[in-house]
Every structure is written in structure tokens, then in C-alpha cells.
């Protein structure tokens, strides 16, 4: 009964979406306010229907209803409740449902909180949202229905891939989708603006909070994915330039560019057609990511089950959405006039934003090329190759150097014409911090790691640059402290958000640089009670026991950790690490569970390998300096986005459209 209810809700949602994609659009063209207004309840009811379907599927998972094929294929009665729930989106059909749930959530949010939008713009935005929703609902109902029944039902389910039974990964897809799908808002606004033929400061101000929210969620989603790869895959690495990782990273890069260019549209009434293009591309890359992951055209460790028929359907959606919007762009974008375009100076805030956009888009293009090159080479008969970390390190990383150098300078430049020597002279503190960090790196490690020292220097430059700018704004130490504090409270939250996010970028860079350059790896066969020195620590394998989890059996080692060289007598360990090798009998799969001892400055990471014939065990241990800063930095970055989002101007709404922006001739 419940599955049928969910199925029925999906069908109804498809009908509502079909109405929502056509009627408000036509009404907006004819100026029919009554029909335009129906977009609002349509978007809201679409969300309620999808939420009902999602609740129905979750109910089937929680109650282990194996008459539903999807549940039988991906769940098991012995699975802990958390993974029964996360199992809802741990498979192709359920993750599509989550995708659409988030899409309609954003649509309903625009409908509910968009009262200050001009009615025609709101109707058009919701209509474009309706089209995307209709496409994906049709995809789900015709090729990937999560509510299909089984007769007769199996006595128990097949279980969820053990690699996915992990708290980090349980929340990774929802955040990732909040990001991916959130960019559909920017896309819908862009398409609506192209239809209206008008982009102005007010438009940019409406688009920005949605883009900012999506960007923040995507940041967390990518960070969670990388954290999961770090501790679950047991290789001690955090980023592998895998196609699926790249698929989520490309929208992030272009979305970051979009965040910056939308500011230029708002403040300087320039870069309009470019911003529209970025909005289309950001969502377009999210769709391409979905296509690459689910069609099986690329191989990856995390790709979903391959089904070419589904691939064709997603490809058709992709071609319609991006092809259609780019055609609209080719037709309508030339009519978008920028009043401020003639006044662009390279040394100015907007000049710095253009540099940012240039570097980020080229970086996204390099990642795109590296991800798709093997596919296209294979098509033209060029043979099989794989593009790995060396390519990305030698193309992507050099692009980040000028970007990071500019991150500290850009926000200090004035609009229209900046004073570069003046800004640089105020940044001497940041420069000193950068030199200090670089020298510190050289001194701690060795002088040959010049590139790593450059990375540390850049990271410190960005962090210190943000602090210097804040200190300059509040005139710290130049006026009495009380005055500085008053100024600090007076600064807009969007400024704080930006500074926090920029400083967070510096933190991430420090973490990535230090952990890549100075990782220590030790692989050795150790017998119980034998000591193993690792980067200033000593480890002792105490024993290996068999432990039973709810749905797995594990061999769990106990490893004593002490600081310093191998101790002579008996000592109290600072921590006992318990790395495991788990075997999941239902799924017939094994996973390694790394044990990590983390301090704020470094991780000690221990993985249990195979036993040898003489009672010894292979133990792999890594010492990863500053690695916690990568994820800490990402969280701070998300927090910066939240602070910026809470800025007053997003809440009181945008100003009235200026009378001077003349609408282009209607189509």
C-alpha cells in the first residue's frame, strides 16, 4: 500500500511539473497575472508530493519491505538503522528521488520566499524549474522506478555495498545534491533572464543567495567525500582525481567563478552575458557529472551500476537542457547590454574578479579535458589511456598559484580604479607571514622541497591577507581600540563572509601542501609486541582479535602508540588505535577501517593488512602533517558562505529595478 502511495505521488508530481513548465511561461508572455501566480502553489505542491514519495520509500527501507525490488536489492534486516535510511539514496533509483526532492525543495523555496521578485520573473524561473523536474520525474518513472514490486519477495535483502556503510558517506550525497541541484536555481534565473532579455543589478542580487547556498553545500559535499575516501579507502590519500570526484569539482570551480562575477553584475552592471553563461555552465556541468557517473561511459571506483538505456535518457535530458539554454543564449545574449563595460581598468576590483573568473574557468577546463580525454581518445580509436594525478598536478596546480596570489590583493582594490602599489605596501605583513611560512617549511623539512615551501607561503599569504584587510577596514591600532571595535561591528556580514571564505581557502592550501609534501609512509610486517617507529611516534601491535559487528565480522588490531623513540621499559600508551579488516558476509565484501589518531596539526593513520605465515601482520602507517586542515578549512569556507548569506541585504530584498534598464524587444 505505502509503495503504491509513493508511486502515485510521483505520477501526480510529474503532472504538476508538466503544468508548471508550460502554463506560467505562456502566461508571462501574455501578461496573464492570474495564471502566472499558479506557479507558486504548483511548485509547493510538487515539493509536497515528492516529499511524500520520499517518505514512502524511506518507510519501506526502515521496515525492510522486501516486496519492493529496490529495497530487496540494497538493504538487509541486519543493517543498522542509519544505513537503512542512507540506503534510500545509496542506489541509483533512490538517489534520483533525493535529487528531485532537493530540486523541488529549492523550487518551493523560491515560490514561498520570492514574494519580492517581479511576478513575471518568478513565473518564468519556476517554469524552468518545472521543466527540469518534469524531465527527471519522467526519467525516474520510465526507467528507474524505485517502487517496483517483487513477487514473490525474497526472505532477506542483498545489502548495501559495505564501503557505503559509513557515517561520512551517509551524508555525502545529500550535501552534494544540495549543491548540484541548488545550481539549478542559478540556471533557471539565467534562462528566465534570457527570455526576458534583461539582466541588471537586481537580478544579480536575487541570484546570488541561491548560488551561495548551493556553493556552500557543494563545498561540504566534496569535503565529506574526500574525508570518506581518506579514512575508508585506506590509502592515506584524500583526493585521487577520479572521474567522479572531478565531476563534482568542476561545478564547484565554475560556481565559484559565478559567485564572483555576479558581484560585478550587481555593483558595476557589467559582465552580464558572461555571468549568464557561467550560470548555465555550472548547472550544465552538474548534469554532465550525473551523466558520466550513471551512464557507464567512464569507469570509476564509485560509478553506479551501468545501464546504457538510462544513459540515453540522461543524455537526452542533458542535450535538451544545456543545448536548449545555450541556443537561447546564442540568440538572446547579444541583446544584453552592459553599461559599465567601457570603464574596465585591469587594476581594479572588477579587474581582479575577471582574473579570478579567467583562472577558475581555465582550471575547470583543464579538469574537464583530463576527465574526458580518455573517453574521446578511445572513441577516435586512439587506444586506452588513463589520465591521472601527474596531468592534473602539472596543469591545475600552476593555475592556482596566480589565483592564490591574487586572492589577498583583489578585495583590497577599489572599484573602477585600484591602487596596486598602495595595496601591496599595505600587505607587507601578509608578505612577511608568507616568507616566514615558506622558510619554516624549508627549515623543518629540507631545502629541496622548494615547491612545497611556495605552497606554504601562498597559504599563509592568503590567510594573513584576509586578516590584514580586516585590520585595515577597522583601522586597527590606528584609532583607539573602542573605535576599531565599533567599526568591526559596522562592517557588513557579506564582508566577513568573504574574508572567512578566503582565509579558509588559505587553510585548505596549507593542509594540502603539507600533507602531500611531507607524508611519511611505513609498511612493515610486525609481530605482536614488536615496535615500529613512524615519524616521531612508535607503534606496537599488541594483538589482533576477532570482533562481531551488527552485520560484519572483523579482525581488529590493538596498536599502542607512544611518542618518541622505541621505549625500553613498559610505558603507558598515549592512545590505543584499533584498525580493522571487516568482512560483510551478506554482501560478500571486505573493507578496511583505518584507525586515526588526530591532533590539530597532524594525523597518525594506521591500517591493518594481511597476516603472514609466521604470526606477523602487515601494518601500514602514515603520518600526515596538517591533513585535518583540509576538511577544517572546507567547514570554515562553508561557514563563511553562511555568514555572507545572513547579510542584511539578502533578507530585506533587492532594490527596485532602476528605470534606466530598458527591456529588450520582446521575443
Amino acid at each position, binding site marked *: 500500500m505505502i509503495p503504491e502511495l509513493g508511486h502515485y505521488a510521483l505520477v501526480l508530481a510529474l503532472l504538476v511539473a508538466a503544468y508548471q513548465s508550460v502554463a506560467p511561461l505562456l502566461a508571462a508572455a501574455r501578461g496573464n497575472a492570474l495564471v502566472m501566480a499558479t506557479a507558486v502553489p504548483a511548485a509547493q505542491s510538487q515539493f509536497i508530493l515528492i516529499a511524500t514519495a520520499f517518505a514512502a520509500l524511506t518507510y519501506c527501507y526502515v521496515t525492510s519491505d522486501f516486496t519492493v525490488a529496490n529495497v530487496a536489492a540494497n538493504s538487509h534486516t541486519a543493517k543498522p538503522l542509519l544505513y537503512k535510511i542512507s540506503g534510500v539514496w545509496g542506489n541509483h533509483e533512490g538517489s534520483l528521488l533525493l535529487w528531485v526532492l532537493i530540486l523541488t525543495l529549492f523550487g518551493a523555496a523560491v515560490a514561498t520566499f520570492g514574494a519580492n521578485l517581479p511576478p513575471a520573473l518568478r513565473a518564468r524561473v519556476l517554469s524552468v524549474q518545472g521543466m527540469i523536474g518534469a524531465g527527471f520525474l519522467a526519467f525516474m518513472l520510465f526507467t528507474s522506478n524505485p517502487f517496483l514490486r517483487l513477487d514473490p519477495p525474497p526472505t532477506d535483502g542483498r545489502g548495501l555495498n559495505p564501503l557505503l556503510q559509513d557515517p561520512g558517506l551517509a551524508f555525502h550525497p545529500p550535501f552534494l545534491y544540495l549543491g548540484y541541484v541548488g545550481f539549478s536555481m542559478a540556471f533557471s534565473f539565467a534562462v528566465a533572464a534570457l527570455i526576458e532579455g534583461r539582466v541588471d543589478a537586481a537580478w544579480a542580487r536575487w541570484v546570488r543567495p541561491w548560488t551561495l547556498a548551493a556553493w556552500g553545500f557543494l563545498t561540504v559535499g566534496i569535503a565529506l567525500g574526500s574525508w570518506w575516501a581518506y579514512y575508508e579507502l585506506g590509502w592515506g590519500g584524500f583526493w585521487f582525481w577520479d572521474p567522479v570526484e572531478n565531476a563534482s569539482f568542476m561545478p564547484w570551480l565554475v560556481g565559484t567563478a559565478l559567485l564572483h562575477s555576479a558581484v560585478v553584475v550587481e555593483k558595476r552592471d557589467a559582465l552580464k552575458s558572461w555571468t549568464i553563461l557561467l550560470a548555465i555552465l555550472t548547472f550544465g556541468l552538474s548534469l554532465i557529472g550525473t551523466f558520466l557517473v550513471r551512464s557507464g561511459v567512464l569507469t570509476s571506483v564509485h560509478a553506479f551500476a551501468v545501464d546504457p538505456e538510462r544513459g*540515453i535518457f540522461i543524455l537526452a535530458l542533458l542535450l535538451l537542457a544545456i543545448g536548449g539554454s*545555450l541556443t537561447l543564449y546564442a540568440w538572446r545574449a*547579444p541583446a544584453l547590454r552592459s553599461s559599465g563595460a567601457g570603464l574596465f581598468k585591469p587594476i581594479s576590483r572588477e579587474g581582479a574578479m575577471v582574473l579570478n573568473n579567467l583562472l577558475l574557468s581555465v582550471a575547470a577546463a583543464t579538469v574537464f579535458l583530463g576527465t574526458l580525454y580518455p573517453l574521446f581518445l578511445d*572513441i577516435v580509436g586512439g587506444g*586506452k589511456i588513463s589520465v591521472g594525478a601527474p596531468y592534473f598536478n602539472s596543469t591545475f596546480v600552476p593555475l592556482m598559484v596566480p589565483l592564490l596570489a591574487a586572492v589577498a590583493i583583489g578585495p583590497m582594490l577599489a572599484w573602477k580604479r585600484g591602487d596596486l602599489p598602495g595595496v601591496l605596501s599595505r600587505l607587507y605583513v601578509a608578505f612577511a607571514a608568507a616568507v616566514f611560512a615558506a622558510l619554516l617549511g624549508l627549515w623543518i623539512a629540507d631545502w629541496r622541497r622548494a615547491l612545497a615551501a611556495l605552497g606554504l607561503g601562498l597559504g599563509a599569504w592568503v590567510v594573513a591577507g584576509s586578516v590584514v584587510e580586516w585590520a585595515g577596514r577597522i583601522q586597527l591600532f590606528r584609532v583607539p581600540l573602542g573605535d576599531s571595535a565599533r567599526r568591526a561591528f559596522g562592517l557588513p556580514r557579506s564582508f566577513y563572509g568573504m574574508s572567512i571564505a578566503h582565509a579558509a581557502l588559505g587553510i585548505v592550501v596549507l593542509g594540502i601542501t603539507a600533507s602531500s609534501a611531507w607524508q611519511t609512509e611505513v609498511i612493515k610486517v610486525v609481530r605482536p609486541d614488536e615496535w615500529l617507529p613512524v615519524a616521531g611516534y612508535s607503534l606496537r601491535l599488541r594483538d589482533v582479535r576477532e570482533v562481531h559487528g551488527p552485520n560484519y565480522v572483523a579482525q581488529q588490531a590493538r596498536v599502542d602508540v607512544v611518542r618518541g623513540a622505541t621505549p625500553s621499559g613498559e610505558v603507558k600508551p598515549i592512545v590505543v588505535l584499533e584498525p580493522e579488516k571487516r568482512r560483510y558476509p551478506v554482501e560478500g565484501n571486505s573493507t578496511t577501517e583505518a584507525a586515526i589518531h588526530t591532533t590539530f596539526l597532524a594525523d597518525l593513520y594506521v591500517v591493518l593488512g594481511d597476516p603472514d605465515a609466521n604470526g606477523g601482520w602487515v601494518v601500514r602507517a602514515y603520518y600526515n602533517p596538517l591533513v585535518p586542515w583540509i576538511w577544517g578549512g572546507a567547514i570554515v569556507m562553508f561557514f563563511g558562505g553562511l555568514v555572507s548569506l545572513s547579510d542584511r541585504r539578502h533578507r530585506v530584498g533587492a532594490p527596485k529595478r532602476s528605470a534606466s534598464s530598458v527591456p529588450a524587444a520582446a521575443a
Partner: protein
Amino acid sequence: MRLRFIVPAFLFVLLGAGFVYALVAIQSGKKDPSAVPSALIGKPAPEFALPAPQGFPAGLSAADLKGKVTILNVFASWCPPCHVEHPLLLDLAKEATNGGFQLVGLNWKDKDEKLAAWFKEAGNPFARIGADPDNRVGIDFGVYGAPETFIIDRDAKIVYRYAGPLTQELLRDEIRPLLAKLKK
């Protein structure tokens, strides 16, 4: 309509055409993105000499590959797909004399006593078995998992490699025709 605004749409058309072509090629079975060809195809088999596992008569070395067409199967008792393909290997073993080839095994990362227990029950299809408990020779062959099957010609050159369990279809469509060709 100015030209630079058409560029994105134009580039996307190219990309879309590429995607369509890739997908059609996969569906029609012309391309398989997960197939990994061996870098060793066409190259001589690596030099090696391995003892037989305990309880088996003949070990395996590079010298045994010369002058005969050889099917070399990488297997282990702990690997479930190896158990799945085992009956097919027993069938192949019966064809060896008439077919003019030898079937040999590389016992990969395995324990001698477990192998002996399994083969005592299930039967031994191999004329020779080399024991490679620590993946010394496996690395030279580029083995990344069990089972894998190599076909090696009379000049000890590797001509074919398949990763994964053998199937009836694979024997019929690829392996037996290749063996017939190499016999000539």
C-alpha cells in the same frame, strides 16, 4: 546574433555528439570502458621459475612455456570466481592433447594446504602449477586480481589476456578459435 555567443552552443554540439557516439558504441558492444588491455600483449612472457605447491609434482618456469602453446590461469583457493570457472578449466584440460596446448596454473597468494584440500575434492586441471604466494611472478605478469587467464604462443610470447572468470561464451567465441589459430 554575434559569432562569439554561438561558440558555447557550437562546442556543446561537438561534446554532445561525442557523448552520443560513446554511448552507442558501448551499447552495440563495440567499446567496453572497463576492459583493460594488458601492456604485455605481444611481448615475451617474463622470466621466472616457481616451485610446485606442496603435494603437486611439477612446478612452473619460463622454460616450460617454450615450444608449446600455453594457457596460463592465475587462480587461488580463496577466490570465489576461481571456483566458478573451475569446471570450465577441467573441460579445457581434456581438450589439451588433441588441441595441441598445455594448461598450466599460477597459484597466486595462496596456501599450499588449502589448495591441496580444494583440488583433492574438485580435481586438478593443470599439467603444471607454480606457487606464487607473495605475488613475485604475478607482478611481472601485471596480475591485478584472480582469476586471470593468459594465452602464450610457441615462442613464449603473450598473445591474449582476460581478467575475470572464464565463461562458456568466452571459450566458444575467443579462446578456442585463438587456440585453433595458434595450433597451425
